[in-house]
């Protein structure tokens, strides 16, 4: 049974369509990623699935509860980590969690054990009595994740969980997320615009201008590009191309003085290629396609990688500093 089901979901703001007729399903226990550039409609989709916004068209179910007609059941079954900070900084870590646990009706008797469990999971157990104000950006993010888990949701939604964190903290946070999947078999729906993070997902949907342009495992998406790229350099380019055609029935092409060859499972093919060619080769590289190539191929544009937009920079800044 699918844990999230989305059918023709659409959200219009006045006459701007932020989410345009999307369809997908998420299976229990998987990490499902939404990859897309700024303004693609990632957060809007999360808001629709978490009942914070009402769709203008289509339907969606979380754990078979309708997100429009059964809002409370959906809310009870999800944990949500927002893109922007949402902790009460004047409360301690423990008070933030207690507030949350009470609203989600975690039994008072079960609370102490759960508190310890989620705080240990994110390594904040010994900071529980500290005011959130005194936490670093990464600690706040981890606390938000702990908060999203304390009521044992069926699905955890993470909206750009690592935005604005430094690379080391990002890697650590991913360790926690993967631990969640491993130890709790948690279903995770996440958005990101970091291509390297999308690689952690079991399946990703590439979303651009409100539409899903591709949906598959990261490996399949890359495979669809037609495989790996082998680059050869040789002073006898023409002869090399001819020899490859003759011995392997493959069409290599010359670009900027280099010879490019597209091939699946390039790492297995390369030794055979080199063993049988007699034309002299001066250099060789093997490149695996990246999700960047996938994105470029699908949209004709580069996804923003590390060079964040001004909006992101502002968000990152706010996250580090936190509201006063």
């Amino acid at each position, binding site marked *: 049974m699918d844990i999230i089901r989305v059918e023709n979901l659409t959200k219009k703001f006045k006459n701007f369509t932020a989410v345009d007729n999307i369809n997908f399903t998420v299976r229990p226990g998987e990490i499902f990623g939404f990859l897309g550039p700024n303004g693609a409609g990632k957060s809007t989709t999360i808001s629709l699935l978490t009942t914070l916004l009402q769709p203008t068209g289509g339907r969606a179910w979380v754990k078979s509860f309708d997100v429009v007609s059964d809002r409370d059941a959906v809310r009870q079954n999800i944990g949500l980590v927002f893109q922007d900070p*949402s*902790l009460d900084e004047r409360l301690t870590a423990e008070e933030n969690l207690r507030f949350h646990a009470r609203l989600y009706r975690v039994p008072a008797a079960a609370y102490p054990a759960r508190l310890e469990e989620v705080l240990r999971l994110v390594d904040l157990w010994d900071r529980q009595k500290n005011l959130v104000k005194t936490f670093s950006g990464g600690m706040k993010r981890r606390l938000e994740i702990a908060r999203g888990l304390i009521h044992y949701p069926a699905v955890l939604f993470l909206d750009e969980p690592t935005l604005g964190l430094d690379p080391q903290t990002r890697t650590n946070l991913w360790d926690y997320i993967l631990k969640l999947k491993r130890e709790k078999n948690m279903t995770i729906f996440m958005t990101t615009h970091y291509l390297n993070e999308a690689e952690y997902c079991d399946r990703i949907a590439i979303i651009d201008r409100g539409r899903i342009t591709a949906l598959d495992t990261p490996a399949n998406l890359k495979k669809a590009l037609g495989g790996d790229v082998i680059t050869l350099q040789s002073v006898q380019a023409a002869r090399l191309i001819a020899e490859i055609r003759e011995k392997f029935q493959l069409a290599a092409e010359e670009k900027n003085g280099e010879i490019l060859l597209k091939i699946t499972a390039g790492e297995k093919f390369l030794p055979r290629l080199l063993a049988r060619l007699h034309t002299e080769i001066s250099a060789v590289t093997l490149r695996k396609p990246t999700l960047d190539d996938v994105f470029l191929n699908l949209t004709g544009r580069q996804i923003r990688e590390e060079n964040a937009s001004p909006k992101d920079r502002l968000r990152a800044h706010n996250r580090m500093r936190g509201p006063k």
Partner: protein
Amino acid sequence: MLITIFTIWQREIIRYGRDKTRIVATFVQPLMFLAIFGTGLRQTLATGDFGLDFLQFMYPGIIAMSVMGVAFFSTISTVWDREFGFLKEILVAPVRRSAIVLGKVFGAASLAAFQALILLGLSPLIGVKIQLLALPGLLFFMILIGLAIAALGLLIASLMKTTESFGLIMQILIFPMFFMSGAFFPLNSAPIWMRTLSGFNPLSYGVDALRQILLANQATPAILDKFTLHSPIMNAAFLLAFSSLAVSAAILAFNKKA
């Protein structure tokens, strides 16, 4: 439902307890009022023909103003929650919107009543006479005023997006509400338009009730009659009705938002 209301209420109280500026203000503001009204104005204004000490006449108004100030100011927390993202955490929880609104209103009303209690405790210092028997009634109406103003404040807060716009509306509302509350002068002798307007002003009902209770055994019925507008029961009924109306409207506004 009750647990949610309590949880939201408790957070307001904890946040108040952590904010030293607000705590200091809670004590300083009444002292300031009392200093001004107690020593300053008493000499200058005591000559009116009220038939009683002006301070006794003014005092219910001071309490009401103080309660109003704190109740209004405390509801700003909802706007802050929106600005700092915490409101989303509350709105995405599986709880009734009415429980959220009630928790917030009770929080603000509690803080307002606490302020008024301090003011009551300080009153002997400046020579306001309060009979022990009057205390429960005073407290009851202080809470009612707190509720009515907190409910109104929350309604406004639920419609406002920024602290600035909320502050602006407060600025615009507070002065006329206080001026037309009957705190400074009896509304019975005010022009008809003002009396009509003050008919919608919860503060005027609060001041009216507080004054009757405070002066019950200190002024003759004839003198009391000169200022009295409604019976205390009428006043309480209006304040309760006003609070319910404002709370309902705030719940509607919350429901619309998410």
